[in-house]
């Protein structure tokens, strides 16, 4: 009998898993895909918002403001890149200037520190590439940027190290309830008996809730598309640049990434399907148009990739974080749209409080290790450190990804670490191999080879992102139809 089963390996599920791993209990996290961070947590704006945006009194506002300062500790412990670069909401006309005042007030009542409205002169000084017509901006020094999938993976690794079992390729198909309380969770491979279920299934949280016969709510997907640019132009802005927000969204922004690139996006369009992460032509045009209002001169010839993410919009318009009144032991953590990433640490705290209230005893472990094993990023090391590392392990001297300077050693590590990579995308998220300007053109054949060797499988079995996404279709000569002479098997 397990104490807790967490459904969903996004940032929310993994944050909860790591928090639970501090205590003496048996917990399992189930993720349907072949890696954690395969849903919304891998495709979003990656901003740790300051917290001025959400309506005062909502969970979004409260948990965002509470979550923001926790990132320094978490990212320090887990060695995840996080930069508090600050954000600017830019006003392009008088009406927007007035809206900034409102935002400032809202921010203050949410308890956001350090907010100020700055003049156009100061804005120009800070961000010379921002539209020269801008009149003023709201500056939020506490906003930051992070790598959301690296954070999610780090949380999963650390939870795993501390005893939470992370089961990949494990879609939850059924939940059994007995005597009004949670009994078990079924995946294709097994049935797990548990006292508590935490539903952190992102876009699918409504379906899981329904499966369990718990509260009914609806989640609809709302797409956001992005274009990401070559690192050579990463310096175009130094802070997160927002337009003045509208009622429905924070708008299309121009934003640096922790890896030194920058992106533009997202737009905001409701879509019919929960796996529709296709980028559209209209979408691309829309985000270019939007971003140009903020930064008129975009190096559009140097886009390296596009992607889309889906917001899990709940019909309650706020996060749904509460114990079910209908099914004892079932806790919903749904509708976690933006600022869900920023709020994740506070969401996890809140879920633990709920578990306690629901009767789970939380006794601290004395051997909890908040740090994950060190990660070597060759490109960030000094020459001395590089030399030392290669001497210890020659595989760090073989560069596999030329654009991002990722070595074979790092790829092997990514495969062998806890919650190790099993596919090309999983290697990419852990090492950045294939994320640079050539987008894997050079390194993907080599990574296929390394994955096959490390996992003891044929290259034909290596996938991009789990079963069904095999990279290769066969050996050469296999498809040739002959009279049975050359190719008679």
């Amino acid at each position, binding site marked *: 009998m397990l104490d807790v089963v967490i459904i969903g390996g996004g940032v929310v599920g993994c944050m909860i898993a790591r928090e639970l791993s501090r205590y003496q209990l048996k917990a399992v996290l189930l993720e349907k895909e072949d890696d954690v961070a395969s849903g919304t947590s891998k495709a979003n704006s990656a901003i740790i918002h300051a917290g001025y945006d959400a309506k005062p009194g909502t969970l979004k506002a409260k948990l965002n403001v509470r979550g923001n300062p926790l990132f320094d500790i978490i990212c320090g412990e887990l060695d995840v890149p996080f930069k508090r670069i600050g954000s600017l909401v830019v006003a392009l006309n008088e009406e927007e200037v007035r809206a900034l005042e409102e935002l400032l007030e809202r921010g203050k009542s949410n308890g956001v520190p350090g907010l100020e409205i700055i003049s156009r002169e100061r804005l120009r000084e800070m961000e010379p590439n921002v539209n020269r017509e801008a009149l003023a901006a709201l500056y939020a020094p506490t906003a930051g940027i992070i790598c959301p999938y690296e954070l999610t993976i780090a949380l999963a690794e650390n939870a795993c190290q501390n005893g939470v079992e992370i089961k990949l390729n494990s879609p939850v198909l059924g939940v059994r309830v007995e005597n009004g309380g949670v009994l078990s969770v079924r995946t294709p491979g097994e049935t797990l008996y548990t006292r508590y279920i935490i539903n952190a299934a992102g876009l699918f949280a409504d379906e899981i809730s329904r499966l369990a016969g718990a509260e009914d709510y609806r989640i609809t997907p709302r797409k956001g598309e992005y274009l990401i640019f070559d690192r050579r132009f990463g310096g175009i802005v130094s802070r997160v640049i927002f337009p003045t927000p509208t009622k429905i969204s924070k708008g299309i922004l121009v934003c640096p990434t922790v890896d030194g690139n920058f992106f533009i996006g997202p737009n905001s369009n409701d879509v019919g399907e929960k796996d529709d992460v296709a980028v559209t032509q209209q979408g691309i045009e829309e985000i270019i148009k939007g971003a140009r209002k903020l930064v008129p001169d975009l190096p559009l010839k140097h886009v390296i990739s596009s992607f889309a993410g889906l917001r899990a919009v709940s019909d309650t318009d706020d996060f749904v974080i509460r114990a079910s009144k209908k099914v004892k032991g079932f806790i919903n953590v749904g509708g976690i749209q933006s600022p869900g990433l920023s709020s994740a640490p506070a969401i996890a705290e809140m879920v633990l409080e709920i578990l306690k209230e629901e009767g789970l005893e939380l006794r601290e472990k004395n051997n909890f290790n908040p740090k994950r094993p060190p990660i070597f990023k060759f490109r960030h090391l000094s020459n001395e450190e590089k*030399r030392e590392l*290669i001497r210890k392990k020659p595989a760090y001297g073989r560069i596999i990804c030329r654009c991002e300077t990722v070595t074979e050693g790092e790829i092997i590590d990514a495969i062998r670490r806890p919650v190790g990579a099993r596919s090309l995308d999983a290697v990419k998220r852990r090492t950045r191999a294939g994320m640079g300007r050539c987008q894997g053109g050079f390194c993907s*054949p080599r990574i296929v080879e390394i994955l096959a060797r490390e996992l003891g499988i044929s290259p034909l079995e290596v996938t991009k992102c789990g079963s069904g*996404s095999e990279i290769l279709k066969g050996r050469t000569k296999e*498809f040739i139809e002959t009279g049975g002479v050359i190719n008679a098997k």
Partner: protein
Amino acid sequence: MQNRELVIIGGGPAGLSAAVEARRLGIKDVLVIDRESEPGGILKQCIHPGFGLHIFKEELTGPEYAERFVREAKNLGVEIMLDTMAIELTADKRIIAVNSQEGLIEIQAKAVILAMGCRERTRGAINIPGFRPAGVFTAGTAQRFVNIEGYMPGREIVILGSGDIGLIMARRLTLEGAKVRCVVEIMPYSNGLTRNIVQCLEDYDIPLLLKHTVVNIHGRKRVEGVTIAEVDDNMKPIMETAKFIPCDTLLLSVGLIPENELSRMAEIQIDEVTGGPVVNQRMETSVPGIFACGNVLHVHDLVDFVTREAILAARGAASYLADSDKKYDYVPVVAGDGLRYVLPHRINIEAMPEKRQTFFMRSVKPMAKARLSIESEKGVIKSRVMRYVKPSEMLSIPIDRDEMKGIKILKFNLQEEGDSVERGE
């Protein structure tokens, strides 16, 4: 820190040709660095014939062409350091390279030749909408899988872009039993060599759809098909013409980009049109003593020209090593009407390594007949009629030193001419 006389980064045909020439010119210490475990560059995976027609007057495969230079380089005592990637280059010619045996290697070179080749443009660079499933490859990556690793990237294939690699792969995959549904090209003309259109598509009945592009990629996990559409004269897709083509693979052959990360680190001036360094008469970049040749300088369609350019760079390096303090005044070389670029970008006529300088250029569009005229501030100094000019086929013209004596500027123009009765050049 190692001290070396001439270091060549990249051991493809450019690097190897330069190394051979450098040794022949008497440079004693020539080091070639390449990140692959075999020298030869991209030629290793080009197992089709069509290399060396100009230089060797015979038709070799890529590996055969490369092998001639590898053997020659070894005979002449060129040191080739393999499995080694150069990761840093400074303007004062310090190189940092890594490999797993020696670890981090620091080298101080007296002269450097850049021969890093190019990389392929990707889906992101051309913004194709749709999902991001497995089964989208650049043509060169697919070529590596097939010709080097022995694996098939797909069974039913659509190729976007009619660059040479795409055309070659259309034939290759067909011979391997895959079905190539079509080659889709956004321009009203092909970007490949005419001989490749004939030998790789027409001979196998593979349709070439000009003025078409891929507007959507379908399939969540693996490509299930693509939507293609005709484009208008502004290259905008005409959505009424959209149609779905089932396939499991999309190959991209949409252009090559010179690989100049190291050049940028060394603060070498880059020409935004070619994507490669700005060079002078001896293929020397804006940083004295650093030279460039081959695809790192501008994308070539014929390897023979790569070798010629490399020889020039090697001669440049040799004269630099003999006298490194020489300063030059330059005559600027300008690409005028009808031309995308002309190389070299500037020349010093007295210092030309040979008595004639060959200029390389690409036209902006196909022309059945065109006049290439070269003028100085004094007027036209040379002109020539050219037939069947295409952007994909590099043009070249040699000009004698005597013809350029005393001029201050050199401007190249390519003008379309109506077809008259006159024949030939």
